[in-house]
């Protein structure tokens, strides 16, 4: 699945996400920002936040920062990182943290799926339960997902 489609799926299922961007090596792969300049500023801001979080994490003994949530009175910022790729999202105040992380991880995982594994276009096909993690093209969220 390409990044734009993964992002479209994310914003469809997650009502908590306000803005989101998928970045690779600092480059914007997909974003909800319509203005390119705004997307670029957001990406640069995320890079600064992650760099500072890396610094603080190392000082605290965290070896490899995988994800973060910065909660402020205006809302929260979430970042999930896998290798050179990361997804960053903003939410309103007091989000359901586990659910947002789940949605972001699922979105990033679906982008990472190799194109060769993508099934033929069949919009009516539902993802089978028990499929490969991150490889499922589309999956309906259930309440049970929130626990992850």
């Amino acid at each position: 699945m390409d990044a734009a489609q993964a992002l479209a799926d994310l914003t469809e299922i997650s009502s908590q996400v306000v803005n989101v961007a998928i970045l690779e090596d600092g480059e914007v792969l997909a974003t909800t920002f319509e203005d390119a300049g705004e997307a670029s500023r957001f990406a640069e801001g995320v890079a600064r936040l992650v760099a500072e979080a890396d610094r603080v994490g190392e000082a605290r003994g965290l070896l490899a920062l995988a994800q973060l949530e910065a909660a402020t009175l205006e809302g929260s910022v979430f970042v999930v990182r896998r290798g050179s790729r990361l997804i960053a999202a903003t939410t309103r105040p007091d989000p359901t943290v586990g659910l947002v992380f789940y949605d972001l991880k699922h979105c990033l995982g679906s982008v990472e799926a190799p194109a060769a594994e993508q099934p033929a276009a069949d919009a009516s096909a539902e993802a089978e339960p028990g499929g490969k993690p991150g490889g499922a093209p589309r999956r309906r969220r259930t309440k049970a997902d929130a626990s992850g």
Partner: protein
Amino acid sequence: MLVSLAGLAASAVYRRRRERRRERVDLYADDGSMASIAEGTAEADGLLPLARALLSPGSLPSPAPAGAPAAAGD
């Protein structure tokens, strides 16, 4: 007795809500370890303004041109 229990419950809910409203940054590592940085610490003072800027994209500074150093003060 019932009034006391209700009071305790209300107090617990109030404290929990206040706790949730506090600004903080939670960092999670690959190995499952986690660090929570509460507001008022030097570390949070570095992280929270960066997060606030992302929440109001209009306030973000313009990206530095290629080859230019990052914004001063970072």
